[in-house]
């Protein structure tokens, strides 16, 4: 097996004196879609935040594409090629959609023409964003906001995109559209790690799945295998 793109080993992290992650191990292959599932409070969001540098790892290593990121600040993580679409989208709500997307390209140094070309790509992928580009992001519906947030993440030209809670609060038709877009991006070579509370959706789009519980990865493997695992089915899919 080739060297994984993202390799996390023994990562501990938390907030103040409250530890949340208790030695997380996880490896994502280059060019795959992986998903991270688990119940509320399992530490999924904290793991995302630790990868992107918002939370400092207190122990362990986060290796990405040959670089060690466990002690990196968020700007260094993005510069290394990991963009993070945070839980709740966190768009700049009183900024126009176009300015939100340009914020995604904040660190880029490859020139205005390249950024403009990527804007066009985003508008082609999500035409609603093009129609409403001068409107404030706060006026978008939930699904449109998620499109904008994903597009904003992509504007940083990352090698890997982390998406925290892809489908939360969204209509099934919108989730299908987002999943199609993610598969298309993946075919173009983007690696994805998706945190998803809807385990059925997660296992459907991801090649590998990681199950998190109380700050550790408790199960992992091919999505298809996990989907047929009786324990997983009982705990997360609600049917036997």
């Amino acid at each position: 097996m080739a060297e994984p793109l993202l390799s996390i080993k023994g990562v501990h992290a938390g907030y103040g004196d409250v530890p949340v992650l208790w030695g997380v191990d996880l490896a994502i292959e280059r060019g795959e879609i992986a998903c991270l599932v688990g119940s509320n409070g399992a530490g999924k969001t904290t793991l995302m935040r630790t990868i992107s540098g918002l939370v400092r790892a207190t122990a362990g290593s986060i290796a990405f594409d040959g670089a060690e990121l466990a002690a990196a600040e968020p700007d260094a993580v993005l510069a290394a090629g990991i963009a993070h679409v945070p839980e709740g989208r966190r768009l700049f709500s009183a900024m126009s959609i176009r300015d939100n997307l340009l914020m995604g390209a904040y660190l880029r140094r490859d020139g205005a023409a390249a950024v403009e070309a990527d804007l066009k790509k985003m508008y082609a992928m999500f035409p609603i964003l093009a129609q409403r580009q001068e409107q404030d992001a706060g006026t978008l519906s939930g699904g449109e906001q998620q499109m904008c947030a994903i597009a904003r993440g992509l504007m940083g030209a990352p090698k890997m995109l982390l998406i925290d809670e892809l489908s939360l609060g969204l209509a099934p038709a919108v989730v299908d559209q987002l999943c199609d877009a993610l598969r298309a991006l993946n075919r173009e070579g983007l690696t994805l790690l998706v945190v998803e509370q809807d385990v059925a959706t997660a296992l459907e789009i991801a090649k590998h799945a990681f199950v998190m519980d109380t700050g550790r990865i408790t199960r992992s493997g091919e999505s298809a295998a996990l989907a047929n695992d009786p324990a997983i089915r009982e705990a997360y899919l609600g049917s036997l």
Partner: protein
Amino acid sequence: MLSLQILANGLVLGGLYACIAAGFSLVWGVLNVINILHGSFIVLGGYLAYYAYAQFGIHPFVSILIAAPLFFALGYILQRSLINRMIAAPVLLTLSLTFGLDLMLSNGMLVAFTADFKKLTLDPPLGVLNLGGIALPVDRLFAMVLALALTGLLYLLLSRSRIGRAIVAVRMDREAAALMGVNVKRIYAVTFGLGALMAGASGPLLAMIFPISPLSGPVYLGKAFVICVLGGLGSVPGAMIGGLALGVVESFGALWFGPEHAITLSFTLLILMLLFRPTGLLGRTGYA
């Protein structure tokens, strides 16, 4: 005719007020820091213009160009070295910090410049423009135009430039901005630097009109407070509207109630706004 004259006086004053308040409002809005130093920065900018004119004959309009980079650097360094250390602390603690720094600065100015009022008097004077019966002193008119131009430049910087977008993004959501690769502490320092720049650059403009004294700092600070409440916090258009409104209110207030009540009037206005429209005349727009 008299009321037109009073209105014109008020607008001229209001343009200067807008410039005073824009930087204060920016710092408060983005950093959640109430910068008590703001008034003393204005006074210090005034002294810079006074001595540049008295010693070297440098016109106050030119002094602005000297004051701007100096004050930006001063603000940037102050934020980087001191205020960033406690930026996450409750607002009263950062207020205490800037209050303490202000005590040092204003007392330092008392020692250096004494409490005597100094007046920058242009020689030869620029004269008075007569517009259909409305008399407008040319120095005041120029000062207002420059003040509004500075405020407009700040607005353009915030709404059109990459660094301005980053400042606005940090104001809206610090963490999301960090995920975009924005170095938040650096943006804080740039923002504080811009606030200081606006204060330092409005000093020379005010020095052409009002006498300069270290004791004027709190007066300017009070105006900045009232304007922020009038226009809405953290927005340049808000500071513009609030500044012009305060200028006009003070002008008419001076006519109707006597100039000695100007400060009473403006703080009465502040209390009324807080009671009935705490988001300011423009509401909370948040953008730039």
